[in-house]
């Protein structure tokens, strides 16, 4: 499972890179020079909706794996205990707050993506 996740993080990285390069080189570098209608028509076309959904799922999976590494390295009793012992005893609280913010971002972005972009755009 660990090896699978290790490869999967790199695989999702390549999907994200493909999407970002495609969009950046096409529009994001200079969105104000491009007509809004061109951007809107292109980004809400069916192929781009599929590509964006794959990109979004890849980003969340890749991001959660990376953020979990950060959590395991820094928000532990040991690491926080280097700063102060009291802080170290609250490691679990920091972990839960950190996870809460991650969950918040994932829920809000999923809501926007599904209802404002995939269904509404």
């Amino acid at each position: 499972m660990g090896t699978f996740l290790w490869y999967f993080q790199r695989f999702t990285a390549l999907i994200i890179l493909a999407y970002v390069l495609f969009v950046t080189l096409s529009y994001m570098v200079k969105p104000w020079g491009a007509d809004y209608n061109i951007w809107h028509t292109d980004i809400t076309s069916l192929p781009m909706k599929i590509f964006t959904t794959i990109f979004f799922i890849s980003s969340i999976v890749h991001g959660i794996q990376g953020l979990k590494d950060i959590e395991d390295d820094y928000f532990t009793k040991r690491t926080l205990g280097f700063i102060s012992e009291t802080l170290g005893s609250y490691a679990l609280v920091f972990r839960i707050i950190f996870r809460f913010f991650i969950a918040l971002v994932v829920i809000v972005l999923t809501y926007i993506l599904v209802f404002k972009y995939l269904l509404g755009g």
Partner: protein
Amino acid sequence: MTRRPTFINLFLIKLPIAAISSISHRLSGIAIFFIALPTFILLFLTDYMATNQGEWDLDKYNFEVKLLISVSLIALTYHTLAGLRHMLIDFSSYGHELDQARFSAIITFVLTFIISIFLLMEVW
């Protein structure tokens, strides 16, 4: 008699350039997850930045939005380049030696600086 470390002051430990590269990779990853991804999805995948006439709303392209886009682009540039360096180390024999790791880390920072300037010139 063995001397065991009883006191570790993290501020006295000097960080090599490869370690700074690794920490920056993590920080830029956090910035992407909490800033760049929301900025892209909330501003550009919805119709927030558009007027009713179907044009870009330049009033909404204000200082704060420019700042969000700038931070996103810098973080994304660095994270991508450092990620490619990481893939190079993972899947090839390059980068396992100290001098190679140092050199590639410096190259990552220099390329980030150059590409960021070009991208930010387009934003501002």
